[in-house]
């Protein structure tokens, strides 16, 4: 059987892979590789590590499907495995998170005062991120930086969607308090 259609859902593709369809596995890799790559880079992977980490993440995900709850999003499962891989990788360094805080206020570069204020906002947010609990920080970044929904975050962090939502709103509240 060969089903490799990109129109199928993740669950359908996983079922096809379990039925022996290699093209279904390939379709899942193609579908999720880039977003997973972006996540790995944000967690400290270097460009030279990326291929290895991605390959290992997908390999472990397919080989360990018995550990995946079928009612949970497959992308959350991938993120959980990727997170464990980078955690193991950087265990000696205590883990690394690279924050890219964008220049979201459309600063006029000709206006030094506005530029200064934008820098100050970025610094305040960086400081705010440090004050969040690890769970709040991880949920916030998965939601905003990686674009995961609460179900996917729950699968990635082994929690519930409701708890993820609460962590997210606590994180946002604390970061908002940092802004002038």
């Amino acid at each position: 059987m060969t089903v490799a259609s990109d129109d199928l859902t993740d669950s359908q593709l996983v079922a096809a892979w379990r039925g022996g369809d290699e093209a279904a596995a390939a379709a899942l890799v193609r579908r999720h590789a880039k977003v997973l790559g972006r996540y790995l880079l944000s967690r400290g992977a270097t460009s030279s590590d990326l291929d290895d980490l991605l390959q290992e993440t997908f390999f472990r995900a397919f080989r360990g499907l018995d550990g995946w709850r079928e009612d949970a999003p497959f992308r959350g499962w991938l993120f959980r495995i990727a997170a464990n891989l980078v955690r193991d990788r950087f265990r000696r360094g205590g883990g690394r998170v690279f924050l890219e805080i964008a220049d979201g206020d459309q600063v006029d570069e000709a206006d030094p005062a506005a530029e200064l204020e934008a820098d100050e906002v970025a610094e305040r947010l960086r400081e705010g991120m440090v004050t969040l609990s690890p769970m709040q920080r991880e949920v916030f970044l998965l939601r905003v930086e990686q674009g995961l929904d609460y179900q996917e975050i729950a699968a990635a962090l082994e929690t519930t969607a409701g708890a993820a939502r609460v962590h997210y709103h606590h994180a946002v509240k604390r970061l908002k308090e940092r802004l002038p």
Partner: protein
Amino acid sequence: MTDQHLSERMPGVAAGESAWSELEAAHLEACRECATEWRVVRRFAPVAEPAIDTERLAAQVVSRLRQGGEVVSLESRRPWRRVIWGLAAAASVALAVAVWRPWIGGTEVAVAPTREPTMLPELDALFEAELEVVLATLEPKPVEPIGSVPRIGDLTDDELELLLQDVEG
């Protein structure tokens, strides 16, 4: 239109997956709480996806799955691990040669378990912690007293031949 609704929509809009409707934009302009949240969220908006050859990656993953290989630690796939094993093998040979050396000068000099000068520039690339791992693998075995080491004159022709092969490569 509620703050909660807007809050839920923010990550998607920040990522460029959708845009504010007129109603939402009006709310955003009027509501200070939502405007502040939007300032936070859009600063963490996703960066561009990395350039990844997904076709090649998919082929590699499928190939590994087909081979049915075991899950391996990424660390064990690091090149310096091979250096460690190579070094350990080289050290074993060096130690063996060191133990066989007492005939030189014929004096009762203790055989120091020193490492032969290595020609492994890969070591230069290792971090301190990794070098410590290498050193741990080179922990020398206790050296027997010099008297128990056979003298060259005690060796048979075959043993001499083996020794020469070791020394001369």
